């Protein structure tokens, strides 16, 4: 089964901002078709870890591979040579990233937001890209918003457009950085529903979130991070209901 191959392979990744050590040796494996939810308090390094997976953050040491190839580097002997920007951008087109604050392009319509990357990065004909974009909008329940500008949409709708924009590149991996944290409470559900839908279709995903209920329902693996390290990981039933570490227990008791 394809679930046996590693889609993401993070090995002893370290990252510091000046004197502040954000990641202190993180190892993480995500198998194809699985959903990994990363939990942890603010400042635990979970967003930074996610951003190293598509090279938005460079690692100080260690390595990140997606679908068998190193992200951002080429290995020769004992050296990792940083790739040219063009090559890194190409790798990124295979990795969808959804931001906490959506980061839709405010001066472009919803449709243009979604077609921008397929047209300019994948050289798709504009017509095909637009047809695909409309299909994606339909999938996230926003078929009638193609010509709207982002500011005319609610937060939940904007985030669903952002998900459609990431999907337009047909990525093999989707990364979500606290996708519902900037939303009003009543809008969280509509975004989580779209993500759940993707999970059920077998999309490989890594989701950083504070939504414990979502983790329980959708995750194949729950990872708990604290202080730049992975404290424990396992199936949701184990990590959420029978945590082995005191740190996990105390975190869960605060957020539940």
């Amino acid at each position, binding site marked *: 089964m394809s679930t046996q191959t590693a889609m993401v392979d993070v090995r002893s990744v370290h990252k510091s901002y000046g004197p502040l050590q954000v990641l202190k040796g993180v190892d993480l494996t995500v198998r194809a078709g699985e959903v990994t939810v990363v939990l942890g308090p603010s400042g635990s390094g979970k967003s930074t870890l996610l951003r190293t997976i598509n090279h938005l953050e460079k690692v100080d040491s260690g390595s990140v591979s997606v679908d068998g190839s190193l992200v951002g580097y080429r290995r020769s002997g004992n050296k990792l040579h940083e790739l040219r920007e063009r090559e890194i*951008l190409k790798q990124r087109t295979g990795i969808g990233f959804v931001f906490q604050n959506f980061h*839709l*392009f405010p001066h472009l319509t919803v449709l243009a937001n979604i077609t921008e990357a397929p047209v300019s990065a994948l050289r798709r004909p504009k017509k095909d890209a637009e047809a695909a974009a409309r299909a994606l909008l339909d999938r996230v329940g926003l078929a009638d918003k193609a010509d709207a500008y982002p500011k005319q949409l609610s937060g939940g709708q904007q985030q669903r457009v952002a998900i459609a924009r990431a999907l337009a590149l047909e990525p093999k991996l989707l990364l979500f950085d606290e996708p519902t944290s900037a939303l009003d409470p009543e809008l969280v559900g509509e975004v989580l529903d779209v993500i759940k839908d993707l999970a059920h279709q077998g999309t490989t995903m890594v989701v950083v979130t504070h939504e414990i209920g979502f983790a329980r329902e959708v995750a194949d693996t729950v990872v708990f991070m604290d202080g730049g390290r992975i404290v424990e990981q396992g199936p949701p039933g184990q990590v959420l209901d029978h945590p082995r570490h005191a740190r996990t227990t105390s975190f869960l008791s605060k957020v539940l």
Partner: protein
Amino acid sequence: MPLVDPVSDTLDAPAPPAAAPPDAPDPAALRIVPRRRTGRRAAAAVVLALLALALVSVVRNDAFQWDVVADYFLTTAVLRGLGLTLWLTVAVMVLGFALGTLLAAMRLSDNPVLRGVSWGYVWLFRSMPILVQLLFWFNIGALYPTVLGVKTVDLLGPVAIAVIGLTLHEAAYAAEVVRGGILSVDKGQLEAAQSLGLGAWRRLRRIVLPQAMRAIVPPAGNMLIGTLKGTSIVSVIAVQDLLYSVQLVYHRTYQVIPLLLVATLWYIVVTSVLGAGQFFVERHYARGTAGAR
């Protein structure tokens, strides 16, 4: 969890009848009378009176010679000068912003040499008065008598010197305006574009600059109007712009005031047109920011 909202509960509740005064009529029938603003009216009256006095003196004082103004307003010499002023303004603005954008990109690059050179350029050309710079270029022949075998004086006429001097000056300011615009764009926009695999040129052209334009247009409009009027400085090196053209006339006729009025009125006309143009440019770049389209 059942939630009770005590605030809206009290708001929704009807006011107790005991609280209303005994003789209260229907509140909907009450008329609202605005407060008298005596001070405001007095101030307006004083200002209007002063304005009227000024207007009367302008119309009554024959020394303004409005008939002479009318005579010269549309003469070929004046229109030709206006044409050169407009041409010079457009050329300086376009070249200045092209160079300024390049300087801004250099200043924001990761390359420390490019950053330093850009900083040094802005430092130097913002420090030098434009008049000094123009005189300097006018006398450049003293430094380099010949360029590639051609006499510098023949190579650089007054108009070429005006374009070069004004452009170099303009670029220093344009660089800061463009840099400010680019910095005003949220960093997340760039990250989103990167994570979608958009190349550097595409990110700048399609994502960053259109959004930066919202912050660039108002100061650029200021600069455009400043440049239009600022070109009048080239009259010192005998370039026949609008100001120099009317000067040529009044040196002959001694009708100094009416001819300066001719130039002033033209500057006002063009500035007003540019101001109106700016409105439409700003509206264009405000796409997607207004609540409704």
